């Protein structure tokens, strides 16, 4: 073989190795988490409150708390993101869409800990309470740009003929959007929303100073509330071995939820592609 042929083979082999290494990381993580989490999980995990070291309980309050925080985030973030996405895809305004689009991408890249600080200043400080609601607001700020951009993307994928077909029948632009374009793109839009929820449900940093944490059931949405990610953090950095096992169990549950969300989203999309 000539030198050039050897370089050719070698470089592509190295690229293949890089791909193998990166993809295998996922399986390594899954395997390790399933092994450690699987041996730590029990029915108690889903039904009991956390206990002190030596008296392992469960994380029922954190599971409920996470659900509550994500619910607030979705109720606030999804509509704002959705309608902003419609604006980005459909508006005929001259320069505003480009600015909003760019800003949404920047907002999406803002470190989540910074979002946590800001929500602390606007919600926790004036209300004098860490709360599930503040946590939900923090996560919603992350959900908005994600939903906006994915909604926009899927609206723009609707074939032009469909749009023109409706307009040709005399429907005005916004009626066309509401009755033809959005329904045609609904699978994609829902996919984007599921992915967004999956993404924020694992976020920890924005919750540290908004919903804080709670060893017990939360006294209400205006009170400090436990969440799975924060629980994983506090248990993992603790010195107790039995708390570590609880962290593994929580990690497995959280990752399971996130991956199920991602795979569901994927399936919603590919099923739609097959049918149309």
């Amino acid at each position, binding site marked *: 073989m000539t030198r050039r042929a050897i370089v050719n083979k070698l470089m592509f082999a190295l*690229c293949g190795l890089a*791909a193998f290494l990166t993809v295998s990381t996922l399986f390594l993580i899954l395997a390790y988490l399933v092994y450690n989490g699987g041996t730590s999980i029990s029915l108690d995990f889903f039904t009991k409150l956390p206990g002190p070291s030596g008296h392992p309980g469960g994380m029922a309050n954190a599971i409920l708390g996470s659900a509550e925080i994500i619910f607030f985030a979705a109720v606030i973030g999804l509509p704002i993101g959705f309608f902003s996405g419609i604006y980005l895809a459909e508006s005929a305004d001259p320069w505003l869409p480009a600015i909003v689009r760019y800003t949404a991408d920047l907002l999406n*890249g803002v470190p989540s800990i910074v979002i946590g600080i800001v929500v602390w200043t606007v919600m926790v400080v004036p209300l004098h309470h860490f709360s599930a609601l503040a946590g939900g607001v923090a996560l919603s700020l992350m959900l908005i740009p994600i939903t906006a951009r994915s909604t926009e993307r899927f609206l723009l994928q609707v074939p032009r003929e469909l749009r023109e077909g409706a307009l040709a029948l005399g429907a005005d632009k916004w009626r066309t959007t509401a009755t033809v374009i959005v329904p045609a793109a609904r699978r994609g839009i829902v996919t984007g929303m599921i992915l967004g929820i999956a993404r924020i449900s694992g976020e920890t940093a924005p919750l540290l100073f908004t919903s804080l944490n709670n060893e017990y059931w939360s006294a209400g949405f205006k009170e400090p509330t436990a969440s799975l990610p924060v629980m994983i953090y506090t248990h993992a950095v603790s010195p107790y071995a039995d708390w570590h096992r609880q962290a593994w169990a929580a990690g497995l549950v959280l990752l399971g939820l996130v991956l199920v969300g991602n795979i569901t989203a994927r399936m919603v999309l590919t099923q739609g592609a097959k049918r149309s």
Partner: protein
Amino acid sequence: MGKLAAGVTRLFAISILAITLLLVIQLWLHSYEARQKFGLGFLTSTLWNPVTDEFGALPFLYGTVITSFLALLIAVPLGVGAAIFLAELTGPKLSETLTFLVELLAAVPSVIFGLLAIFTLVPFMRNYVQPGLQRVTGGIAIFSGHPYGVGYLTAGVILAVMTFPFIISVSREALLAVPREQREAALAVGATQWEATWDAVIPFARLGIIGSIFLALARALGETMAVTMVIGNNPSIRASLFAPGYTIASVIANEFTEATGDVYLAALVELGLVLFALTIIINGLAQLLIRVTTKR
């Protein structure tokens, strides 16, 4: 009716601008005491003493930059290499499947990376990688000192794993967007497949690839949980990559709820402001570069 719909959606869209503006204003207002007391010296001071109310950002800036740099050092060759493999060497089916797996990796929450890192990566670094590096290099300055396991290097490694999915998926898109004629032009004068990739395809996609690296950099700079769990929490500047350090995001995560006193809190918010500015600039560049390549 049409006017109303246009107006309502515009209002929602403007809320995105308002939120971003709110971030800037709040960070600016709530860092007032620290900005007032330390001025620009905040960025260059290495002192971090809550007891005497003296605060400087340099150890955290240093830790943030050095861990992100280490992350890119590992993630760029791996990520770009994998992207080349996925774009140039595999069929569309396999490429899509592998890319989906890589994107799943990007979906793994930060705190789970941290959990795994504490119990697997840290002992692995302490027992094998760090002593190994010391033996091979003879313990030069950057690899000197006691191998604790936690520290800059370990944080860099975990950041690399967390950022290469971004490099892979964005670079792959950029490579796939290169017109086939570019590759064929090189092949037609007798280039090997690798030469065509390296000389024709990659230069054509270079802005997108650089954009993906900037994107990864911005992620690494702002990454909080995983880093906080393995960085070692030590606000000082050390030459050794094995030394425990601190990053902006992790000091905020650790000290914010325990900060007593207005100046202390304001100093932490100002750190947040610095981090915000840093990531906005890097991200802004990344988005511009990616836009240029995908438009062409």
